[in-house]
């Protein structure tokens, strides 16, 4: 890429990220609650509940400009890679990392793709449920990616992040957001204990994330 093209490219990403963060604030008044971890520029995997396309915008709006520049959301390649426009939005404007959940070729291996991003010193936003949760359940079971990444790169912090209310702001199939207040609760880092089994770790990470929900739906 020429120098000018690279500059334009960075400018586009900065403008998009600042613009989206401002929009997120106007619509949701989004506010981070640091409950067990603190803002830091160390390398991290933020893992969060997933109910809406707006989730990662909200999460990255809670990060500093500097962290946002090196933090990439992991998104589904089947969806975001479908057309050139979608790919442009996901990769060029939002600097997301696209992975295919149904991969066949070795170079499509999602773990390898995510590891290559981590190896550049960048951070990730990961939705371990693997898809947007459209059920009445607060949080679906986790897929294994989180465990595999942590085993491969144990020095990277895994931060659980509970995103509040986004399913109400932008429900599935809707385009216009309803303004509702949202908070993102950042919990204490989770690590794989020595000898811990895959499923046991994933369930523990799942429970840790769920426990961050500041206002669980009341039974009434």
């Amino acid at each position, binding site marked *: 890429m020429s120098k000018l093209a690279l500059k334009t490219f960075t400018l586009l990403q900065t403008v998009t990220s600042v613009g989206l963060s401002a929009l997120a604030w106007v619509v949701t008044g989004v506010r981070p609650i640091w409950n067990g971890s603190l803002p830091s520029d160390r390398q991290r995997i933020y893992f969060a509940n997933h109910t809406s396309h707006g989730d990662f915008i909200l999460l990255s709006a809670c990060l500093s400009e500097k962290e946002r520049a090196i933090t990439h959301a992991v998104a589904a390649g089947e969806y975001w890679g479908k057309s050139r426009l979608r790919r442009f939005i996901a990769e060029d404007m939002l600097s997301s990392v696209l992975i295919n959940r149904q991969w066949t070729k070795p170079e499509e291996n999602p773990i390898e793709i995510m590891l290559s991003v981590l190896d550049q010193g960048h951070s990730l936003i990961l939705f371990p449920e693997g898809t947007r949760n459209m059920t009445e359940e607060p949080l679906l079971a986790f897929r294994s990616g989180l465990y595999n990444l942590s085993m491969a790169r144990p020095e990277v912090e895994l931060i659980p992040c509970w995103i509040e209310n986004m399913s109400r702001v932008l429900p599935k199939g809707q385009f216009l957001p*309803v*303004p509702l*207040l949202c908070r993102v609760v950042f919990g204490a880092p989770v690590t794989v204990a020595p000898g811990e089994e895959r499923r046991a770790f994933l369930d523990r990470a799942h429970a840790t994330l769920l426990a961050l929900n500041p206002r669980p739906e009341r039974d009434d």
Partner: protein
Amino acid sequence: MRHDVSILIIGLLVVLTTASIVAAILSARAPKPLSSTLVNLTQRINAWWVMVALMTVAFFFGRYGMTILFALISFASLREFVTLTHTRRSDHWVLLGMFGIIIPFQYWLVWTAWYGLFVIFIPVYCFLLMPAITALHGDTERFLERIAAQQWAVMISVYCVSHVPALLTLDVPGFEGRNLLLIAFLIIVVQGSDVLQYIFGKLFGKHRFSPTVSPSKTWEGLIGGVVSASLLGALLSFVTPFSPLQAACVAFVVCSMGFLGGLVASAIKRDQGVKDWGHLIEGHGGMMDRTDSLVFAAPIFFHIVRYFWTV
């Protein structure tokens, strides 16, 4: 600048400066680390500086400034209110309509001074059509709760709040061109009453007014705050069409309404299990934590002025 406006602004500056100095002295003398009450007091006073500055700016932009400012206050209040209520996916279009149609249309009615529709648009048309739309979506789960919460949300955060800028549409003989001062009077007296209730409550509060609803409201705070705010109203009669006695009576009524508004807001928060409506204003909580008294006072003040002082 008009004489009475200058006196109001200077008065506010003196009060705020005094408050900041008192808070600074209290903080300097208090043992460290500071108690949460003192930290909160300083945050509240700082937020007051910002709020007074914003109101003053809006004041100088006149009708534009006030209409836009209160439309934004409605937006922030409605957002906090709806966040606390139970909503379902099928409510999406009704919720969008509340923000995208009801707020702009109600403030357009204020702007054009279309009184006849202004007073009935929400309580007649919206109250009938909103549940109809919800029913058309076919989702009856917790139906009554959802439509009731939606109606009360627009009632409080849009209908009641819009009565503040609507004061600009009243024709009070001999008071032409000075209606902005009615808004200043209402806000200073009602918010003053809140502050005075807080001060009297902190200094002398012993007997809880309603322990089940709000732990912070006491009889001492209520009586001390409302009586002193009524006196403040009498002092401010020079910016109103009222005599000092009338101003005191009007102030007494609106401050009593303001107290009830705060009580209702506390009951809603308690029912929903939260302490504050939101986090927009440092030290105070959300927008609704500041406007809960104003929303109950504004329509009553509007109708008192309209009934007794307009032709």
